């Protein structure tokens, strides 16, 4: 049975169809990548899959639950966690506390026991701190265990978001451009981290422009263009799909330069794919 099922999903912003009539299934245990040129609707799709946006039409079901139209915290409580392309780190806290916030679903207590600081809560807090530190080490943030979030470099913050998402003990993790802004060494370390996530039994949905990373870790790839599904299938098949190559390489030619901003990224991506 599929873990996540998307059926006829659409999202309109005014007259723009950011995502249009999209259907696909995600199987448990796989790395599922979503690629496409800028503006293809990848981040919109991720926002729909985490409840941040409400779909204009269509359904999202996770396991046996229909989550269509539910708020983001319910997506989280069913086991969908995510990171953000534009970081949503809690900069008013320490790094460790950021990850501890991620334990919320498993640590929350009644208001009275919080106000009175019951013994049980105090013990749970110690355990929570320990688990959060463990997760920080897991994603490679050993050096930032006592750092304030606003004193950390960009690459470390991206890992911090992954640690925070992992702290929710997700079944499905949505990663929004985890390699963007990272240097090549940091990006290489991501391959390993994503591999370890699936080893933990977490299914990963990856939105990414870095084709080396995508082709390296993906089991399955969905290609979006103008909010629609252009191609979908096992990584090897998508890689050699003429339609995909055309979308990335041919579109600039076909539109005869009207696709200005697309040219630069298409060329960059083409170079990545040739490697």
């Amino acid at each position: 049975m599929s873990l996540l099922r998307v059926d006829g999903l659409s999202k309109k912003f005014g007259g723009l169809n950011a995502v249009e009539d999209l259907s696909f299934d995600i199987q448990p245990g796989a790395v599922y990548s979503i690629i496409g040129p800028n503006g293809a609707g990848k981040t919109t799709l991720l926002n729909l899959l985490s409840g941040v946006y409400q779909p204009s039409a269509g359904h999202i079901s996770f396991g046996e639950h229909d989550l269509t139209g539910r708020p983001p915290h319910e997506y989280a409580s069913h086991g969908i966690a995510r990171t953000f392309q534009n970081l949503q780190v809690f900069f008013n806290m320490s790094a460790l506390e950021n990850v501890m916030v991620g334990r919320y679903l498993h640590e929350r207590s009644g208001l009275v026991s919080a106000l009175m600081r019951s013994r049980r809560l105090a013990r749970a807090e110690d355990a929570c701190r320990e688990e959060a530190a463990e997760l920080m080490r897991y994603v490679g943030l050993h050096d930032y265990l006592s750092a304030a979030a606003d004193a950390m470099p960009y690459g470390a913050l991206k890992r911090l978001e992954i640690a925070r998402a992992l702290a929710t003990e997700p079944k499905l993790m949505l990663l929004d451009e985890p390699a963007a802004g990272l240097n090549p060494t940091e990006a290489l370390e991501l391959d390993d981290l994503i591999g370890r996530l699936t080893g933990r039994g977490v299914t990963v949905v990856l939105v990414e422009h870095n084709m080396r990373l995508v082709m390296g870790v993906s089991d399955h790839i969905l290609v979006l263009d103008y909010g629609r599904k252009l191609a979908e299938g096992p990584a090897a098949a998508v890689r050699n799909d003429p339609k995909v190559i055309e979308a990335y390489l041919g579109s600039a030619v076909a539109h005869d330069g009207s696709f200005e901003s697309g040219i630069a990224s298409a060329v960059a991506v083409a170079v990545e794919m040739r490697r």
Partner: protein
Amino acid sequence: MLARLASPRTGGMLALAAVIALLPLVLSNKYFYDIAVLVGLNAIVCIGLNLLIGYAGQISLGHAGFFGLGAYGSAILASRYGWPPLAAMLATTFAVAALAFVVGRPILRLKGHYLAMATLGLGVIIFMVITTEDKFTGGPDGIAVVPFRIGGFVVQGERIWYWVVGALLLVAVWLALNLIESPAGRALRALHSSEIGAEVVGINAANHKVMVFVISAVFASVAGSLAAHYSGFVTPGKVTFLHSIELVTMVVFGGMASTFGAVVGAAVLTTLPQLLAVFEDYEMMVFGAVMMGTMIFLPRGVVPSLARLLQTRRQRASADGEEEGA
């Protein structure tokens, strides 16, 4: 052990308890006790308000309204209907909590300036109701309030009130510190920084905002009830928009997201006008200058700014020490 003493929970609580215990040594007459009690009551309101403003990042310009409802609720139930003061206070607190819960949900959907406007409106409505429903409230003239009594024991006189309010202040600080260091408190700080980031780890942001709004209203209401019994009289003067602003100013002055900052802010802004009385006609000008100077030189508020200053100085000192050692 030393590290524990330096923590806000243990160290700060002990320091505050020591101040409360030793202060009577310098309080030479009733007038000083009176000011100390006012400081304590304002501090209790500010601790609650700081949970809302400083930690959860939600503004309220209407908290004098909750303070007033607490004061008038207690006054009316205890004086007009002869309820035992403790029962009157508990019933009032419960009613204010219920009101905050009902009003909080729609209001807290608003953000920033719009939330400020809505809470301001709430405060103004409460003020209008209190001044116009003179059958119950005595209108602008106010009403007399019976002394607070539990069983046969009557709480009366500045000295006894001092110890009662001091003890309650410690309880309020303890509750606030506990909340902040709990999962719910972290959720509040998280949604202050990024509501969407908090939501995607499973935090229901709307519920948490309502929760902290209700808690802050309860703190204000309890302080209002106590103030009514303490002064023996309530007038709409403490329910005004101006008093709401004063309360927010205390929180900001002392330092947002700092429970002890709220206490310091309440203490300074309650006593300063009394101390500045020596400047006579220029009192308010000096007061304004002190406020401006503090916010320019200690922009995070008194307590957080000084804490940071101390920390950097200590770090610099330890760095110097290492250099010398090497």
